[in-house]
Structures are given as structure tokens and as C-alpha cells.
């Protein structure tokens, strides 16, 4: 080994990054941590409350119910959007004019701001003037997302599928495009069935992008706020009050900063935990010898 100077001055090189990360993430997060362990009666006077708020949040039936709705919502979203996205990607044209056209059409919903998507569907689903709502009503379907919890859920799920399936499809499409023709030719030579081609060629090659798709769709659906807020406002009752909506109600509506801060941290940890589980499960196969 050569004599290399060994000192800790190199750490200064990391300083700019540390400063940026501190201001963009750590300090804001710490203010939340700060609120979560204190209580106040106003006048900007705070006193130590220990883990009281965390205990309250963890025991709250209201938050349990919101978490249950949230988990159900994300599960349904993943169960629909991932297979549908794969199916669409498999059937998209591979090259030429139609491939470009389909790509543009697929990308359109992704370019629309969240609250606009909410507004579009809020209007689209209205029984009096909305194309969807009015058509359903004219066909004799008793559809009303304002009064009926099931209709409200259906509307929000269809809206999310409309909005985000493109993302899954485009990611899968990119994965599929990277498969050389020789693989499909070899499969034809080996007399593989369509299912085998999917299972042993396409799915393994999509595994990487599929992991990204699952994580993105899970995190986004688990944090969903704007669209249901615009369409249903969390109703009818609390039927579509997901975690974010509940959190905002608590933090800004009721101004319960302490419990809301504790809620935020727990919320964050839950997302982290579930993402970690997805990551571990989906990469376990890849790392097997």
C-alpha cells in the first residue's frame, strides 16, 4: 500500500449536500418532531408532553378507521393498476407511427394536475350535468357518489385508474422494449406457450421497472389527498376520508398540532415500512443464487 494522507478534512466536501438536505428535509421534519412531543394552550407557550400524542394517535378509533380505508384503497389500486398496466404494455404497438401515437395518448392523463383531475371527475360523475352520472342515471342505474359510499369509492378508484395506469403501462413498456428479438425467437424455437413467454422472458425483464411501478403507485395511492378531496371531500360521512384527508382535518381544521404531528410521523413510518416490505419481497427472488 502506498502512504495515503489520512485525515477527516474530506468531510467538508459533503457539507454543501448536508446543508441542502438539512434545509429541505431534516429541519422541516424536526419541527414536526418538535410539535409531536409538546402541548400548548396558545400564546406560543409549549410544554413537554412525552409520547402522549403518539399513544393517543395509536389508540384512536378514528385513525384506525382511516388507516383501514387507506390500506383497502391502496390494495385495490395496486390490484387493478399493476395487472392492467402490464396488460396494456404487452398490447401496445412496438414501433412505428401507432407506437408514438399511443405513447402520447397514454402520457396525457399523467400531465394533468391533481386538482384538475379531481374537478374533471367531480363534474363527469354528477347526475345532473355530468356525462357519466347522467348517462348512468338515464340507463336506470342508481348512481350518486355524493350520497352512496359505494358509488363514491367506485368513482375515486376509477378516477385513479384512469389517472395512473398509464404510468405503470409506460414503465412496463420501457422494460419490454429492452428485450432483444432473439429471446422471442428462441422461445418460438423452443415451442414455448404465450404464458411461458410472459412468465420466463417478459416478466423477469420487467421485474426492475415493475418494482419501481409498485413502489410509486403504493406511495402515491397511500398519500392520496387532492382528488378525493375535490370529488367527495372525504364523504359521504367519513367513507372516503383517507389518512391524508384526516390528517389535514386534524392539523388545519381542528388545529390539533401535537396529535397531527405524531400522526404525520407514524404515517411516514408506515409508508416506509410497507415500501421496505415490497422492496424486500420483490428483490428476494433476484438475489437467489
Amino acid at each position, binding site marked *: 500500500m502506498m502512504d495515503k494522507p489520512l485525515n477527516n478534512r474530506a468531510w467538508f466536501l459533503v457539507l454543501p449536500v448536508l446543508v441542502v438536505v438539512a434545509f429541505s428535509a431534516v429541519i422541516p421534519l424536526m419541527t414536526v418532531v418538535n410539535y409531536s412531543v409538546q402541548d400548548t394552550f396558545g400564546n406560543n407557550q409549549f410544554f413537554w408532553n412525552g409520547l402522549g400524542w403518539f399513544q393517543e394517535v395509536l389508540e384512536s378509533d378514528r385513525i384506525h378507521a382511516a388507516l383501514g380505508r387507506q390500506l383497502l384503497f391502496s390494495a385495490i389500486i395496486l390490484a387493478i393498476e399493476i395487472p392492467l398496466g402490464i396488460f396494456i404494455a404487452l398490447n401496445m404497438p412496438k414501433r412505428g407511427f401507432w407506437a408514438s401515437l399511443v405513447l402520447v395518448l397514454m402520457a396525457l392523463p399523467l400531465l394533468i394536475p391533481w386538482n384538475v383531475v379531481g374537478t374533471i371527475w367531480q363534474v363527469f360523475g354528477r347526475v345532473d350535468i355530468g356525462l357519466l352520472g347522467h348517462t348512468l342515471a338515464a340507463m336506470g342505474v342508481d348512481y350518486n357518489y355524493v350520497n352512496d359510499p359505494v358509488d363514491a369509492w367506485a368513482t375515486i378508484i376509477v378516477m385513479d385508474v384512469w389517472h395512473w395506469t398509464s404510468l405503470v403501462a409506460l414503465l412496463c413498456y420501457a422494460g419490454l422494449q429492452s428485450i*432483444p428479438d*432473439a429471446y422471442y425467437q428462441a422461445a418460438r424455437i*423452443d*415451442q414455448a406457450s404465450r404464458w411461458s413467454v410472459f412468465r*420466463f422472458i417478459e416478466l423477469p425483464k420487467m421485474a426492475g421497472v415493475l418494482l419501481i411501478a409498485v413502489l410509486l403507485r403504493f406511495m402515491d395511492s397511500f398519500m392520496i389527498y387532492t382528488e378525493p378531496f375535490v370529488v367527495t371531500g372525504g364523504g359521504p360521512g367519513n367513507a372516503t376520508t383517507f389518512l391524508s384527508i384526516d390528517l389535514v382535518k386534524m392539523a388545519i381544521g381542528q388545529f390539533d398540532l401535537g396529535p397531527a404531528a405524531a400522526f404525520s410521523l407514524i404515517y411516514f413510518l408506515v409508508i416506509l415500512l410497507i415500501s421496505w416490505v415490497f422492496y424486500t419481497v420483490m428483490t428476494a*427472488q433476484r438475489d*437467489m443464487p
Partner: protein
Amino acid sequence: MARITLDTLAHSYSPTPRGDADWALKPMSLTWRDGGAYALLGSSGCGKTTLLNIISGLLHPSRGRVLFGDRDVTDLPTAERNIAQVFQFPVVYDTMTVRQNLAFPLKNRGLPADQIAARVDAVARMIGMEATLERRARGLTADAKQKISLGRGMVRQDVNAILFDEPLTVIDPQMKWELRTQLKALHREFGHTMIYVTHDQTEALTFADEVVVMSEGRVVQAGTPQSLFDTPAHTFVGYFIGSPGMNLLDAQLHGATARVGGATIPLAAPYAAPQGRVQIGIRPDAVRPTTGDGLPFRLIRTEDVGHHRILRGEVAGAPFNLVVPEDQPIPAAFDRVVLDPARIGVFVDDWRIEPLERAA
């Protein structure tokens, strides 16, 4: 297993081919006998792979028919042709083990498990991968993956033919030799029709009973390695086969003599006065270095490759090589060469012509 017939086959990748250049394969008719070992030899881009893909059904020919035995398979999909093909670059199923990879074509054909197991073990022995059978194919080296591809090609015993598309490109030289010997042994043992595409003449000549030489989408000659060497039908064959290739000199013909530059060369037989560009061709080992009488030769350099020497030089401004065995002395300061008349070939516009007597 079956005889393979190509009936006026032609292919163009363009839907509306215009000129000659649009045709990747120019019309050709060939018959490959059942159980033969054939090589398709030619430089890159000459249409070898296109031809192979048409035989296996991965491509549909623009014109003509492909027959297996008496059955027209032109419109049959690949899977129904029951053919094996090994590609230039390894194709393995990443998530499967080596064993599952080898068993895959047999499973797809619905063979019973015990037959599959026996056959996979036999093939694993053949490619020398018994020890890694239970390993996942992902993460193996490129030549191990290519051995798996070869193994998958050989695992089915009832295939009509096995097609190899430059399968040894990624394999290291030592293993190359071994695998080629294995393929040869496999051919002797099971008698599959084998078609082997390569641009390496050594591979082609050692593997095949009959070599088909292709150039620019055309079959220029099909024959045994010996006949390609002795009587190339086209200057491309003369040049492509042999190391170094055939010497070609522009000449004028006068009956049984040829004039090159200012010198006269006797031929073995008289030729009719031909129209077009006339060349005479001779193998470097049929030329003797001398002094005094003969064709003027200018030596540029000598390469000693062990059991013979290659003398590279020029005759009448064209490159010209001699091969002299190591036990034969080379005259000091020689400046002439003598050509063996019996081994001179005459080419008109690149195609070989026969002398008058034999033609009559």
C-alpha cells in the same frame, strides 16, 4: 428428420423491392439431404442468417417455398416446424436453473418427467455442465450461457434439423474446438440434419460434409470442402477459402496460353476466346519460386508460420502469394515464379469457365 428443399427462394426486407440491392436473398434453389452436415459460409451481411431464419420460420420468405421432405412448410409457424436453432449470442431463461433451461423445450413438448431427466443429464454431460445443473442461469459467464443455448438446441431428439447461427462467437478458443468436436460427434451419433452458419472457413470446412458459400445474397457455390478448394466456381470462393486465398491475375487468353503483363503462361488445355474480364487464379501452394524463366515476381515479405512459409509479393502490380513447405529450399534472390498449369483456373467476369475439350 427430413430432407430440406429450398425452391426458388428469395427474400427482401423491403415491402416494395426495386433494385438488386433490395434483395437480401436472391432467388436460390438448394436441396439438403436428410442427415447431412452443412455449413453456410460467407462474410457478414451476405444473407446467411436471413436464410437460416427462413428455414426455421422466424421469417417468411418474399418468394419461393421451403419443403421438409415432401411437405411444404413455407406458411407453417416456427413451433410447428419442430426445428432447433442456436443463436449467435446466448439466450437463456434468467430465472430458471441450468437444468430447467435444458428441460424447457422437452417440457413444452410434453415429454414424461423421467425421459426429460435422462435426456437433460446426457446433454449436460455433452456440454460439460453437470456440476452447475442446479444453478440459476442468471449470473453465469457468457460462454456458460452459450453452452446452455447449445444444449437447448441439442436436447430434442426428434427435431427436423438443428440450425446453428455462428454459435461459437462468444466461446473461448479452447472450448470452441471442444464444442465443435462435440457437435460433430453428436451428428455422427444421431444423424440430425445440421446447418451451421459461419464466416470462419476453418469452422465450416472442419464441420461440414458440404459447404454452401454465399456472397451478397447469392449462393455462389455448394460443394465438398475439397472441391471448393480445388475448383472454386467464383473468384469470391477462391479468395475466401484458403489461407492465404487464391491468387488472381488479370490476363488475356490465347488458346492454351495466358498472357499476364508481358509474360506468357502455359495452360493445361485450350480455352475459347472469352468476352469480359478474364482472370487466371492459382492456389499459393501450386506456385514454385525460381530464377531465370517464369513470371516476374517482386517479394515484399516472408512469413514463417511453422510447417510452411508464406511469401507475399506482387506480380504485374497485383498482390500474389506463395506457400512453400518448410523442407523445400527457397532459391536465393529469386525473382520469378512458375505456375503449375494443371491447377490454373480461368474466370470470366468472376465465374469459372471450363476449357474447350472438357466442355465438348
